[in-house]
């Protein structure tokens, strides 16, 4: 064991910090950064709510309000929701697979550094007073060269490029790990539901994100080198932007939601103390959600003016997605109903999720209908709807997952009492704050207005919304404080405090750098509930970084693979890529000259360290 430790440990100090390829350390970094972003975005939200709490508010002018909601939306979607789901995957997938690391450890490091680049890309200019101010989707022509002077729109577009490259790196990594590094015996049929969710979300990411990278690159080209993709007078088409954006934007909602479904299922299973009801139905409904998600982006564009048949088709498709989502809700309820449920904090979050998400789903079915959507589009009804599905559907499961796996990550239990207080404040405050927005929307209050007149009669409900949001933000602070204090003062957790069914609970808490002493062998979907002593496989070296590669369908061991050691090159390559991305805001030549350091960096990153093969198809010539 000490030999394993020596093999897998990072060098101490700064060098170890900068070069690490340990998926747990990188995921922790991701999560700390996300929490900081969540705090800033929450403060922005509170600031906007204060502005709107009474008629004729003077806290903000229109420009500051525009900047605030643009920054809030862009941060929450691109710098919080997607990265945090990737981070949970990066942390959990190898542990749940009984593996030593992800398939491409250095890519994990590269992914984090680029994500950090995206964070700085948006928030450093903000600190300098240059903030994107066109909403989180920056439609042209408003974001085109004629209407968006300066570099604000460029900053937004390049922030997207940063975060999407980071998310693609993480997704490829997670998908390859799940498909090729499952432990012996974990066939696809025996794969825990959470891993299905991460696999599906990763594949969706790989298909959806190129669309937004393409469209923001086209926007930058329009602004930087005067191409004419989005100007009708030059033969371009502004709707092209909307179609490409929402071809990413709608699947993106499910890229956020599908991992959350995985969290909920893992928590429901562990706390109901029975295997998930309808495992196969759940997997199939997840698969159908992932396919349908690519076929309903147009419901974000009902107000644009499309042919009748188009509207009808996308109305139908949007309503159909309620079926698989409903199957999942009923499967969770059946699992809880037929199990012996224990309502600890993670399970409370699941209950909060189901209640809130069902409300969001129902208002979703309402706006899925094109005629009703035409009335409600760009009103607070839509604001209420998407906060119910995104906060209720993704953030609440995330908080549950945070409480559930916190003991595994830190070796300490979080305070249950403060956990319940945070839960009540957040869920109560959220519903108090956002439910009135449905009514405000029906009364006609438009989105994105920085103030309104007293004659509109919206003061009371807006004040209620502000009070609710404040309570919710306070709850968030309690949650974070609980996590911070428990890190030092929490009760020791032991390996398996909740009696969980999946492999991560077999590793010590917190897991050592090599995760598991031996590779587990799996005989069912809930391995820890089937054996008192987990069967294991030996044969991986303990004096070299080795991981086990197995077959895609049946997880039959194929070979032992060398796992790359810590390296500084992912960081240096990320710096080179960042220099190119930032430079390309100012001059097109940055793309050309920026390639040179990237190429040098990548060559050195992938410089072969092993001798040429002496046998087999890759044998060196002349041997």
């Amino acid at each position, binding site marked *: 064991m000490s030999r394993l430790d020596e093999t897998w440990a990072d060098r101490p100090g700064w060098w170890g910090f900068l070069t690490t390829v340990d998926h747990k350390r990188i995921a922790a970094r991701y999560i700390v950064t996300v929490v900081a972003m969540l705090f800033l975005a929450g403060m922005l939200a509170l600031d906007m709510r204060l502005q709107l709490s009474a008629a004729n508010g003077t806290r903000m002018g229109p*420009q500051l309000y525009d900047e605030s909601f643009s920054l809030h939306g862009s941060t929450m979607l691109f710098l919080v929701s997607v990265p945090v789901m990737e981070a949970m995957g990066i942390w959990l997938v190898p542990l749940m697979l009984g593996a030593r690391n992800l398939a491409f450890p250095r890519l994990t490091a590269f992914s984090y550094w680029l994500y950090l680049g995206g964070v700085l890309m948006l928030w450093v200019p903000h600190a300098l*007073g240059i903030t994107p101010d066109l909403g989180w989707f920056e439609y042209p022509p408003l974001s085109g060269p*004629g209407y968006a002077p300066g570099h604000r729109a460029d900053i937004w577009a390049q922030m997207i490029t940063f975060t999407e490259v980071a998310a693609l790196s993480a997704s490829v990594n997670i998908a390859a790990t799940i498909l090729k590094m499952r432990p012996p015996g974990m066939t696809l049929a025996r794969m825990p539901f959470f891993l299905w969710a991460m696999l599906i979300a990763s594949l969706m990411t790989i298909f959806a994100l190129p669309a937004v990278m393409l469209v923001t690159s086209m926007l930058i080209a329009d602004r930087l080198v005067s191409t004419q993709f989005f*100007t009708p007078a030059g033969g371009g088409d502004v709707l092209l932007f909307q179609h490409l954006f929402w071809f990413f934007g709608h699947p993106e909602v499910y890229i956020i939601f599908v991992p959350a479904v995985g969290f909920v299922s893992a928590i429901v299973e562990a706390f109901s103390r029975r295997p998930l009801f309808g495992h196969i139905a759940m997997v199939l409904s997840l698969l159908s959600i992932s396919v349908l998600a690519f076929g309903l982006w147009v419901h974000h564009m009902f107000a644009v003016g499309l042919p009748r048949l188009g509207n009808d088709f996308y109305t139908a498709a949007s309503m159909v997605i309620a079926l698989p989502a409903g199957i999942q809700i009923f499967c969770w309820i059946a699992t809880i109903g037929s199990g012996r449920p224990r309502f600890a904090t993670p399970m409370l979050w699941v209950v909060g999720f189901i209640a809130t998400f069902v409300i969001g789903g129902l208002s979703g079915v309402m706006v899925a209908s094109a005629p009703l959507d035409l009335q409600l589009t760009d009103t607070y009804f839509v604001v209420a709807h998407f906060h119910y599905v995104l906060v209720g559907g993704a953030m609440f499961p995330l908080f549950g997952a945070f409480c559930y796996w916190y003991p595994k990550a830190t070796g300490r239990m979080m305070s249950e009492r403060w956990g319940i207080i945070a839960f009540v404040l957040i869920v109560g405050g959220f519903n108090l704050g956002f439910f009135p927005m449905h009514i405000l929307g029906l009364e006609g209050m438009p989105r994105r207005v920085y103030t309104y007149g007293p004659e509109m009669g919206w003061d009371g409900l807006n004040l209620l919304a502000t009070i609710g949001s404040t309570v919710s933000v306070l709850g968030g602070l309690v949650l974070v404080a609980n996590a911070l204090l428990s890190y030092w003062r929490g009760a020791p957790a032991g390996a398996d405090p909740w009696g969980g069914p999946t492999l991560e609970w077999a590793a010590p808490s917190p897991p050592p750098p090599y995760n598991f002493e031996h590779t587990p062998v799996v005989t069912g979907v809930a391995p820890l509930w089937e054996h008192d002593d987990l069967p294991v496989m030996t044969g991986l070296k303990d004096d070299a970084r080795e991981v086990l590669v197995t077959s895609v369908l049946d997880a039959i061991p194929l070979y032992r693979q060398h796992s790359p050691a810590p390296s500084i090159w992912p960081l240096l390559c990320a710096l080179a890529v960042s220099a190119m991305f930032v430079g390309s805001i100012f001059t097109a030549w940055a793309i050309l000259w920026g390639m040179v350091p990237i190429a040098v960096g990548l060559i050195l990153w992938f410089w072969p360290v092993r001798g040429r093969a002496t046998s087999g198809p890759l044998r060196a010539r002349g041997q």
Partner: protein
Amino acid sequence: MYFSPAALLLALTACEKEARVIAADQPQTSPRGPQDPRAAAYENNAYQVSQGGRYFSWYGCGRCHASGSRGDLASAGARRDLPHLYASIAHGHTSGARIPPEQIWQLAGYIRSLPRIDPARRKRQDRDLRGEPQGPTWTGALR
């Protein structure tokens, strides 16, 4: 932490270029001679220049001063300072007296920026603005 003075200067000038002041206390008066300090805030600011560009098409300036035509103002923008340009808009045109001072500041700032704009980019910006009213005529939204 260490900041190099050059980077700091770059950051500050970036702020000036990117600043967006939308408030009621905009200038109500014409420039006080060639050294008026307000000139820099108009000709170096992306937002003010862009607003000037929009008024340029709204007031129909492009009918005589279209890009690439004989009346192209790029060379005038290079030759003359902003107060000069202000005076020729306000007093050299019959309709100049009807334009509010703030908009003349912006128009003059736009003309000052013309020699710095790449011709391809200027053409691209004009295309974006094609759907705007051009002087007294407006042909409706682009289709």
